[in-house]
């Protein structure tokens, strides 16, 4: 392995672990927020969050991700304070924790996306907020570990953060702390005090030097030097003896830890022995003592055990594997075709044997394909955890009460689809809280429960997975949507627009029913982006809404994007593939069965009117040969929408590995990728969801 690839791998490992920790931090923080509300904090949970931040800091530091390191360092600091009971967990602190976590997630993601932009400004803003949480109680509490020293307010007040730290460190190490008072002539004090300082530094640490007012202000200046040393007072007094020097021993290690223990002690009355134990913990924990590392080691062992049955695999490797499976499937098709050809050419016996072997191979290939596909599957529940954090955070920010209900967390979806659906879902949820769920007061006045409900459910439906996001808020005001559509010139006459059609307007770029842009939903991302994102993964989104009772977003997604069964069709001499999951049926029709309704071609299919789309017209092809009198209609459907696609011929079904065409082809509607047919032919795969929405939009 070359250095480059091993470094690359190391970064990948780092990323995987960092993402894991970030995810865990998020869900634990959400739990923490709930606990904070109920006033019942679990120290283990807090400690676990602290350890997460700590690990992340260590990792990021090692891999040279300075931004993550800096943020996690500060986050760790804040958590340490919380953990040691130095500050209380209130709403403000919780908000900072959430914000830090959100930024952390952005930073981790930026690495995987090779995002070059610096987040320094966001980080320092976040760090300032973290420090703000620490600042006020510190003055209050920080004095306390030093109370036993009998230091003056003045001395304590002038200690910088670093000096305080040094003082505490020295106390922890059991050093003697001295206050050395000196008095000098104002004209020569700087030489004199430097001399004393230099002497002191040879057998101890000068923590601070505080100038103080002397008896005669005009001519003299005094200094109080805070000094730590192993030397005993008698020895020290001899070493720095002088007319103007006096030495006082402030505290010893024993009294220090005892008194600091008492001063930081919890408000509940505890016996001195208990206090001592607590103090010992708080003193020991920051240093790397065995007392701390041992339980950590035990924890690690436990987690290692539980992890041992899981293997973390790069999704890229699964993609490669899937490609190989796809190629095997194609190779199999070629062999099966050969077997048929041989039989036709008279080698019947060999042909039958070959055919049998090919069948056996086909079955095993199907198993292999299913197996690889299953590895890519992850439960939708992982998405729920993320959503639950967002919902709790937003509802808290908005002052809305929201109860969450999750169903079907076990439903499995391709990992990439879960990743891609996360952002659109988040947006739908933000919208639901922002515009859907009313404030507790409003709800009460409407006779609803103060608490709004957001229900997210997932279930399998054939080859698709359906995810529904439902709220019991105000619903979409369809009359307002219609009015807006009229105002924007999307329709000339709203009376002919059905409610269902009106809802579709929401998905048009730049269409929003809210005049006021809120911080939550108004991020410049509209429902059109949500729809595009879902369509990009061959999904579909529908809305059901009832004014005053809430809305339901129904997202229909394919289970996987990797290998799909397609129907090969041809039209005007060109060959295409249609994902079989979207094909409902095929019909052979004559030209005369086509009716025209409002300049749209339709056919009557059983009880319903099916809109038609001519593939050649859709892509704007010139037809060489005249259209035959009879043609095929492939009825496709996604979610509740149906469309009949008129084609010339059907050529059979096949498994294909769909390949992306890249960014350049994104703007071509109706094509989701390309595939190799195994006989040196490459064909385009039609994007059914995209075609349906295009057909609806253009009135084709």
């Amino acid at each position, binding site marked *: 392995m070359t250095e480059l690839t091993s470094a690359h791998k190391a970064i990948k490992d780092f990323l995987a672990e960092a993402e894991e920790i970030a995810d865990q931090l998020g869900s634990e923080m959400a739990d923490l927020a709930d606990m904070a509300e109920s006033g019942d904090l679990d120290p283990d949970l807090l400690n676990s969050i602290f350890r997460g931040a700590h690990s992340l800091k260590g990792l990021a530091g090692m891999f040279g991700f300075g931004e993550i390191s800096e943020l996690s360092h500060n986050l760790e600091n804040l958590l340490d304070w919380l953990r040691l009971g130095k500050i209380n967990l209130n709403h403000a602190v919780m908000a900072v924790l959430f914000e830090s976590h959100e930024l952390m997630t952005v930073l981790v993601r930026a690495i995987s996306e090779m995002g070059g932009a610096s987040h320094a400004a966001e980080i*320092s803003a976040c*760090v*300032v907020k973290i*420090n*703000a949480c*620490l*600042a*006020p109680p*510190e*003055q209050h509490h920080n004095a306390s570990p030093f109370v036993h020293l009998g230091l003056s307010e*003045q001395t304590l*007040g*002038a*200690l*910088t*953060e*670093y*000096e305080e730290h040094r003082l505490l460190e020295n106390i922890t190490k059991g050093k003697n702390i001295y206050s050395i008072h000196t008095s000098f002539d*104002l*004209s020569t*004090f*700087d030489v004199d*005090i*430097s001399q004393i*300082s230099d002497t002191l530094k040879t057998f101890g640490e000068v923590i*601070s*030097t*505080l*100038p*103080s*007012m002397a008896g005669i*202000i*005009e001519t003299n*200046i005094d200094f109080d030097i805070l000094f730590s040393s192993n030397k005993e007072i008698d020895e020290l007094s001899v070493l720095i003896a002088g007319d103007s020097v006096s030495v006082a021993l402030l505290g010893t290690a024993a009294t220090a830890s005892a008194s600091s223990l008492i001063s930081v002690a919890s408000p509940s009355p505890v016996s001195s022995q208990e206090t001592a134990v607590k103090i010992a913990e708080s003193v020991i924990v920051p240093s790397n003592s065995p007392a701390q590392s041992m339980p950590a080691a035990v924890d690690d062992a436990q987690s290692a055990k539980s992890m041992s049955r899981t293997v973390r695999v790069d999704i890229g490797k699964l993609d490669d594997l899937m490609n190989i499976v796809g190629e095997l499937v194609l190779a199999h098709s070629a062999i099966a075709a050969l077997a048929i050809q041989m039989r036709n050419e008279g080698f019947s016996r060999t042909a039958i044997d070959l055919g049998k072997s090919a069948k056996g191979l086909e079955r095993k290939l199907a198993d292999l394909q299913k197996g690889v596909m299953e590895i890519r599957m992850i439960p939708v529940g992982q998405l729920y955890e993320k959503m639950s954090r967002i919902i709790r955070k937003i509802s808290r920010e908005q002052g809305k009460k929201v109860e969450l209900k999750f169903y079907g967390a076990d439903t499995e979806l391709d990992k990439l689809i879960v990743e891609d659906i996360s952002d659109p879902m988040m947006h739908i949820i933000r919208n639901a809280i922002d515009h859907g769920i009313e404030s507790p007061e409003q709800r009460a006045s409407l006779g609803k429960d103060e608490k709004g409900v957001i229900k997210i459910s997932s279930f399998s439906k054939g080859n698709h997975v359906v995810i529904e996001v439902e709220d019991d808020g105000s619903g979409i005001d369809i009359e307002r949507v219609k009015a807006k559509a009229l105002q924007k010139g999307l329709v000339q006459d709203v009376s002919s627009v059905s409610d269902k059609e009106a809802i579709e307007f929401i998905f048009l770029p730049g269409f929003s029913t809210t005049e006021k842009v809120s911080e939550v939903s108004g991020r410049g991302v509209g429902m059109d982006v949500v729809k595009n994102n879902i369509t990009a993964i061959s999904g579909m989104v529908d809305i059901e809404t009832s004014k005053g009772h809430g809305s339901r977003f129904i997202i229909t997604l394919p289970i996987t994007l990797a290998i799909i069964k397609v129907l090969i069709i041809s039209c005007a001499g060109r060959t295409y593939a249609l994902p079989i999951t979207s094909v409902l049926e095929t019909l052979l029709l004559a030209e005369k069965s086509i009716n025209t309704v409002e300049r749209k071609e339709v056919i009557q299919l059983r009880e319903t009117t099916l809109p038609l789309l001519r593939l050649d017209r859709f892509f704007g092809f010139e037809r060489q040969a005249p259209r035959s009198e009879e043609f095929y209609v492939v009825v496709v459907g996604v979610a509740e929408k149906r469309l009949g696609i008129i084609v010339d011929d059907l050529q059979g079904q096949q498994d294909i590995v769909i390949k992306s065409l890249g960014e350049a082809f994104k703007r071509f509607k109706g094509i989701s990728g390309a595939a190799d047919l195994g006989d040196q032919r490459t064909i385009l795969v039609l994007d059914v969801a995209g075609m349906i929405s295009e057909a609806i939009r253009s009135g084709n």
Partner: protein
Amino acid sequence: MSSKTILIVDDSRAMRAMLVSTIESINSYNIVEASTGFEALRLLPREKVDLILTDINMPDINGLELLSYLRNNPNYQEIPVIIISSEGSQKDIDKGKQLGANDYIIKPFDPARVQELIQLYLG
């Protein structure tokens, strides 16, 4: 008309130079520089200082200690003090405020903010 005197205490020569040029661009103040807290302590009895800008982290005595001394000394306790601190040292800034600092500036500073503060305290 006697011009007012500003004492700049900072161990970084570049920082002092930056402050000096920032201040000179608004008005003709008399500027005195000290590179350490000790130097400031020696200068104070000799100069009639009207405003002090001081860094916090300095080698001999820190800005907070200097501030504490000033606030406890009847000769100097009325002098407005603006502390200059680096970003993220919120605790030190808060301590400075408790000790009686009139204002603070975050490094890297915005010249306009420095000028604004100087005009606020010196008129």
